[in-house]
């Protein structure tokens, strides 16, 4: 069961011709798939398309009605290989995953698929995790599209354009026998908008028909000599076919005054940002109508030479606005124009930053530069609001740098002001333009707020235990993996040296396999990464290569970081999937003998002792610790309604939470440094003699027990208490409480006399 339920929203997927669909981008994509007559959909979760997978899972009954098979794939490679169904049969299929993490994993099947080509439309929907909020390396899917000859669509970020792009992608794929990649940027995935729907379509050719009438064509299999033929086909047949289709269907768009002798070439996904920049300069109206000639590439790859040259032939200069690096399109634009000796000046990364997200401010700056050079009357700075104009100004940027030497750190949190060079605009501003406003950036001590383990997360105590072991026997090289557990690299834990990819935690420590030391390495892997590939790339590899190191598998019952989807070892009963497959069995199955399963990660002392044992035992060979406790985010979502129900039915319900006694807390905050729970915070010291803030547990506490365990395992202060609040207490509960309170009350009154006399 995923973190967010779309059960209600998916009903929108049933709407028919002419009705208006309102909702999020990913939901619109799903609707577009249903309108396109797909036979199968597969994918692997990950931001920003996790919700797409969740939507699909929640829409399973709707898909069943239409005869569509949906699969949560074991990995992106599995998902990509699924498209093999479209090679020999006229079946439309779609897969989805995040880029570039997913395209990396899927690159093997994607290459094979693209080489042999497809009969039915094959669509790869990638969630491009680039720019603000991204959690992965900053690379482009564009490179994958180019190297394998997969057509790449980057539609304008509005729902009608996105839906049309999905539908046209299938047609394009079929017209050119080539898989098509549709790129969805983060913001577009989560965008709320509208489009006019069409009826859902049942696939004309079904999976059953294919299975009952198998067909094969050896010329589609990547094996010489066919592979050489494929290369030729790709370039000489499929490419021209794609170009024809794209031109005929006008997938790319032109706006503005075609007679203009300057123009902008933009990726479809950049459209709204560019229009906003033009609006700010008074060059476009609210609906985006503009005189500025625009060539909008909804198809980012391949480049349509004819369209480009047609656009450029009347132009003195064009500005290519292409986000990401390297500037693949810009290079192609140059090549295309020079091949026919067309002398239009092409600007791009010379006027735009080479790296980083192209925000409106960035684009606006580039437009001003471009217009200053070619159409100064359009660079109307005076139309910009004061605040926006300030963002264009070359100004010193104050970067507070914490000075690292101990002496200065100790004196005050010293900050130094550095002046970062900011390139001035190339053209002098005419005198009539009002002076540029300088707004100083306030030098506020704004702390970063990186993501962290949730309140009550069962992974936190694992790393607390690791810190405790580190105190005892020194530090170890820690190899991390992808997942929530990667937050251990941040304060307060500060553990972990590298992360090489999903499921590759143990693989990332493979080199540290030396008989010259008894010190072991620790690798981390989540249950998600384990089933994704870690079982073979990590565990199998360690067994095979006689590794002597330690792996901690964090088994929280879900693919938690991507939104709580079920996986093979999930504890949930899932009607449409097989779950409850123990990781320990799999690990033992590939030959690990030293395996310990800890079924309660909150038991820090046990966790610590097991870790110490694994790191110091004389037993040779790989050592695996499986640390199991349910993801708290998902657990709370699961049990909260249950608790409410039981309470309302009059059953005895025990709620637990922790607290800190302010009068015994001395404000050292060791507990916070060892836990880092969001619900463990600080507040003013109520003691008039003390100054340091005291620890406090805020309402969000779920009573996981870590605070108490830490207090015990690390011998902290006695300030923590665990409150048990018994709702609908039984008669016995009430009786014992009453008896105790009579005696306690009597003694407390005696104490109170003494207290009052000093109060």
């Amino acid at each position, binding site marked *: 069961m995923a973190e967010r339920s779309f059960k209600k929203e998916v009903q929108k997927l049933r709407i028919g011709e002419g009705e208006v669909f309102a909702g999020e981008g990913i939901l619109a994509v799903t609707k577009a798939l249903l309108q396109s007559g797909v036979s199968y959909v597969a994918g692997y979760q990950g931001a920003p398309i996790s919700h797409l997978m969740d939507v699909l899972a929640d829409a399973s009954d709707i898909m069943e009605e239409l005869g569509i098979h949906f699969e949560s794939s074991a990995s992106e490679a599995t998902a990509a290989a699924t498209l093999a169904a479209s090679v020999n049969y006229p079946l439309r299929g779609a897969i989805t995953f995040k880029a570039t993490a997913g395209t990396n994993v899927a690159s093997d099947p994607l290459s094979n698929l693209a080489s042999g080509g497809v009969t039915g439309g094959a669509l790869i929907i990638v969630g491009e995790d680039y720019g603000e909020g991204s959690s992965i390396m900053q690379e482009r899917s564009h490179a994958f599209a180019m190297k394998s000859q997969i057509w790449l669509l980057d539609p304008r970020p509005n729902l009608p354009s996105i839906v049309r792009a999905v539908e046209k992608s299938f047609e394009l794929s079929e017209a050119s026998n080539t898989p098509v990649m549709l790129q969805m940027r983060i*913001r577009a995935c989560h965008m709320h908008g509208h489009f006019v729907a069409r009826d859902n379509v049942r696939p004309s050719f079904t999976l059953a028909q294919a299975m009952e009438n198998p067909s094969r064509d050896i010329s589609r299999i990547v094996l010489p000599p066919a592979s050489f033929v494929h290369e030729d086909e790709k370039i000489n047949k499929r490419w021209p076919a794609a170009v024809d289709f794209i031109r005929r269907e006008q997938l790319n768009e032109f706006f503005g005054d075609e007679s203009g002798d300057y123009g902008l070439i933009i990726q479809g996904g950049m459209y709204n940002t560019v229009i906003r920049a033009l609006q700010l300069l008074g060059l476009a109206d609210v609906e985006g109508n503009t005189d500025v000639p625009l060539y909008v590439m909804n198809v980012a790859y391949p480049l349509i030479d004819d369209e480009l040259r047609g656009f450029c032939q009347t132009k003195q200069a064009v500005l290519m606005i292409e986000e990401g690096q390297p500037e693949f399109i810009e290079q192609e634009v140059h090549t295309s124009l020079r091949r026919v000796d067309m002398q239009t000046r092409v600007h791009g990364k010379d006027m735009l930053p080479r790296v980083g997200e192209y925000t409106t401010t960035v684009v606006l700056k580039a437009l001003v530069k471009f217009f200053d050079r070619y159409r100064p009357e359009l660079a109307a700075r005076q139309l910009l*609001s004061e605040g926006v104009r300030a963002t264009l100004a070359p100004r010193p940027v104050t970067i507070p740098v914490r000075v690292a030497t101990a002496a200065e750190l100790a004196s005050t949190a010293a900050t130094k002001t550095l002046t970062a060079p900011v390139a001035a605009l190339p053209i002098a501003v005419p005198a009539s333009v009002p002076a540029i406003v300088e707004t100083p950036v306030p030098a*506020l001590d704004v*702390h970063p707020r990186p993501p962290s383990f949730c309140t009550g997360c069962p992974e936190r105590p694992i790393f607390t235990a690791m810190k405790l072991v580190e105190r005892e026997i020194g530090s170890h090289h820690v190899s991390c993996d992808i997942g929530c557990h990667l937050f251990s690299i941040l304060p307060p834990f500060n553990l972990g040296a590298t992360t090489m990819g999903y499921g590759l935690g143990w693989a990332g420590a493979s080199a540290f396999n030396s008989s010259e030391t008894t010190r072991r390495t620790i690798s981390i892997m989540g249950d998600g990464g384990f089933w994704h590939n870690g079982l073979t790339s990590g565990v199998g590899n360690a067994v095979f290569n006689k590794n002597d190191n330690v792996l901690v598998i964090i088994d929280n019952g879900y693919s938690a970081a991507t939104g709580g989807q079920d996986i093979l070892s999930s504890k949930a009963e899932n009607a449409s999937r097989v779950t409850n497959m123990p990781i320990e069995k799999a690990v033992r199955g590939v030959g690990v003998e030293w395996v310990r399963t800890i079924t309660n990660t909150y038991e820090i002392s046990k966790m610590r002792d097991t870790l110490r044992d694994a790191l110091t035992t004389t037993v040779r060979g790989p050592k695996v610790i499986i640390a199991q406790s349910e993801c708290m985010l998902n657990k709370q979502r699961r049990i909260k309604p249950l608790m409410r129900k039981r309470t309302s039915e009059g059953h005895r319900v025990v709620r637990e939470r922790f607290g800190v006694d302010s009068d015994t807390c001395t404000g050292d905050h060791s507990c916070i440094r060892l836990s880092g729970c969001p619900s463990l915070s600080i507040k003013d010291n109520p003691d008039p003699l003390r100054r340091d803030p005291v620890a406090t547990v805020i309402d969000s506490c779920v009573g996981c027990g870590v605070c108490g365990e830490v207090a015990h395992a690390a011998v902290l202060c*006695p300030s923590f208490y665990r409150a048990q609040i018994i709702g609908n207490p039984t008669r016995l509960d009430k009786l014992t409480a009453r008896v105790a309170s009579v005696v306690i009350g009597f*003694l407390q009154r005696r104490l109170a006399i003494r207290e009052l006399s000093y109060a």
Partner: protein
Amino acid sequence: MHETKFTEVSFAKPVVKPADTKIRPIGIAILAMGGEGGGVLADWIVDLAEHEGYPAQSTSVPGVAQRTGTTVYYVEFFPQAADAHGHSVVPVLSLMPVPGDVDIVIASELMEMGRAVQRGLVTSDKTTLIASTNRVYSMTEKSSMGDGRVDPKPFIEAARAAATRFVFGDFAVLAEKSGSVISAALFGALAGTGALPFSREKFELAIRRAGVGVDSSLKAFNAGFELAQKDPVDGTAAIRTAAVERTQSLLKALDARIAAEFPSVAATVLKAGVRRLADYQNLGYAELYLKRLASIRDLDRRYGESDARLLVETARYLALWMSYEDTVRVADLKIRATRFQRVNKEVKAKSDQVLHINEYFHPRIDEIADTLPVWLGKFLMRPGRVHNLLERMTSKGRVVRTTSLSGFLLLYVVASLRSWRPKSLRYQREHAEMNNWLAHIERHAGSQYALALEIAECQRLVKGYGDTHARGMRNFKLIEGLLPRLAGKEEGVSRIRQLREAALKDEEGMQLAALLRDWNWSNATAAASAH
């Protein structure tokens, strides 16, 4: 071969001169942390606009926001359903806030507000800023070994300077009082500012349409609405007055002594100290406290200024030191009726529910020996069978249920060991250290008043229990050992402060060691600790 003639490109739309519209989309950026309902707030605004027939769009980059990170939700809508010709407008809306072009910024927390200001989203020519001043402390602030909190004042000042209109207050408290979430209170404030072209009723209808927790949301909405309509008041500088007003007959004599013998500026701290120590041990112990401070008072009169800082600070720290934390004290505090009531309130237990309080104790052999009379304590700490047995018995922490008879009685007995305290091992040790410390202060007060003040402040290092206390004591002793090098020198004062602050930087003592290395003082410390 390449074609030399190119297809005519087809321009999709007839060229339209940019419309001379004065109406522009309204942009609203919401800076929130996971779980605060930033998404719900964005949805309400979209719903509100769409119900007026206005085209609206919202986006976010949630990423890992739900894992305590931050995120920006951005809503834009065009406040016109159709133009003069009845043509319904299809605006191109932005997917991200543009610094300098944001009409409304809503921040759910003080530091997030600071982030918005720093990113340039708040500008004085157009932005209405609605911010909650409550704090969700950053990890850096929380994990500091002392007080690592940032000062909220510059944040408020910067925001006031940056915004056209600035509405702020503790919306988290408003929400809590209404039994709702902060997003509802902020939505109310948004309505209260009148920055959007909708009536209050329309805002409330959006909440009703969403249909989740309607009543509590509306209550929080109302509180937020009212706050926005009031003039902003600085709610962040809550002054803590020492709650030492009530006096009892037994303390009157001491209070009279304080009034008669000590400067009035020190009265607040001294009264608090006297009460604390009387509560901790007995009235005689409080008298001892005043007696010990007499010489400091005299020195301060001679060398100090009217604020009597040395006396005040020494009095503050001496009271804390004399009431050092031990098992007796902890047991005493845990079993009080007032404490039971406090917990009851804190965990929000209802009258028909039964509350159990479970304490986490880990008394180790050291602490047990500390509580015992000197001879017995020393015997227990001597290596041998008894020591080992007790060590094994105390290797695990214990959970004691104070609300049960057995648990309460256990702590009651421990608390009543108070009368033994002056004979205990720990008492002797702590008081020996205390007297040493006071002697140092007295020795330097005449020649170097500022240094004496710094020495007094060093007591701040000694706090907590178990390892934390041992670590603090170690650092304290280290600085004490360095006093001969620091005394009489001009830079001694700043050095002792640097040492103290370095000691509070990390548990491993790395900053302190680094500082000493910087000064080439590492050998001296080795000698000092050997001593």
